[in-house]
């Protein structure tokens, strides 16, 4: 019988923040994936009850291994299990990586603007990582990349050290916007991302960048509207609202 579900082995776990964890999975037979794709994970209880949720892939490596970063949702059904219970050596049922739309194409020479709200940084990190390993002489590898990352506070930032490292590249610019709590000694107080900051920090519409926005639905709607008002073409803006397949309100 043909089925999209495969068994993956958890081969490592890394705590990102107090509420988020990265799981490294091995999917036998997988030959890489596209940056921005997601997987569906299915958990099955002893009585046969199942729950399926989607998680973006954070890594950009060829081969059988992928990293997922999972944020624990208050009152979540699947995320607490993935953040607290799963251990290396466990098996998980996985469908994918899937999704051919919200992906960065390394053959595209366009400049790229990434905009993340909270854990929406995960698929955008895959794009940054794919860009970092692309041939610097290639179309995509030589394209400028900017990440605007809106996050509650310093303790909620994912991939901090790696983002600092990536930002050393002259092609990469990383801006963090702290919405609730600014880092100690920060010259500016915490505040929500606004249209003025977005326009000041994002690539201008005149550069015709490929734009990828990922975050909660309200964040994505608002940011996409601001970009269109600033002259970006709606066709150049790709969005990924998260909430998880079958997520309960």
């Amino acid at each position: 019988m043909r089925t999209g579900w495969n068994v993956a082995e958890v081969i490592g776990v890394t705590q990102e923040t107090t509420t988020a964890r990265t799981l490294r999975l091995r999917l036998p037979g997988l030959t890489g994936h596209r940056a921005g794709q997601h997987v569906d994970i299915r958990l099955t209880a002893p009585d046969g009850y199942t729950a399926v949720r989607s998680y973006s892939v954070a890594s950009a490596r060829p081969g059988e291994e992928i990293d997922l970063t999972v944020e624990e949702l208050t009152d979540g059904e699947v995320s607490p299990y993935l953040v607290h219970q799963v251990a290396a050596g466990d098996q998980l049922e996985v469908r994918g990586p899937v999704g051919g739309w919200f992906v960065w194409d390394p053959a595209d020479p366009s400049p790229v603007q990434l905009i993340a709200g909270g854990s929406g940084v995960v698929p955008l990190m895959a794009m940054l990582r794919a860009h970092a390993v692309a041939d610097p002489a290639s179309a995509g590898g030589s394209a400028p990349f900017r990440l605007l990352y809106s996050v509650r506070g310093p303790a909620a930032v994912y991939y901090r050290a790696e983002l600092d490292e990536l930002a050393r590249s002259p092609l990469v610019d990383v801006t963090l916007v702290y919405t609730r709590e600014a880092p100690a000694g920060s010259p500016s107080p915490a505040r929500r991302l606004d249209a003025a900051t977005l326009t000041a920090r994002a690539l201008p519409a005149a550069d015709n960048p490929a734009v990828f926005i990922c975050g909660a639905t309200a964040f994505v709607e608002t940011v996409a509207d601001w970009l269109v008002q600033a002259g970006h073409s709606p066709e150049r803006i790709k969005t990924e609202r998260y909430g998880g397949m079958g997520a309960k309100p």
Partner: protein
Amino acid sequence: MTDSADLDYLDGNAAAGPLSEFFAVDVVSARGRCAHCGRTAALATARLYPSSHGLLLRCPGCTEILLRLVDSGDSVCLDLHGLSFVELHRDEGGSQPNPQPPA
């Protein structure tokens, strides 16, 4: 008809997994035509309502239903009557084969 206060939908892209059970290629990258208003766009840009009784994709133009999928465990039922056609571009993401389980 649409209300900006209703922010309980996701992007059609998130339906890629369930639809991969039906299609050999990534169909959310394909362009689909709304049978109601004629708007034609990538299914990935349709509105996905995941927290309902099944998976619903609605046209962002007229909010009519493009596609419904009900998974009852033993079977999965796909209703496409809201789409008058689906167009794949072979040289874009639409031609990307979905991952297959190892033989």
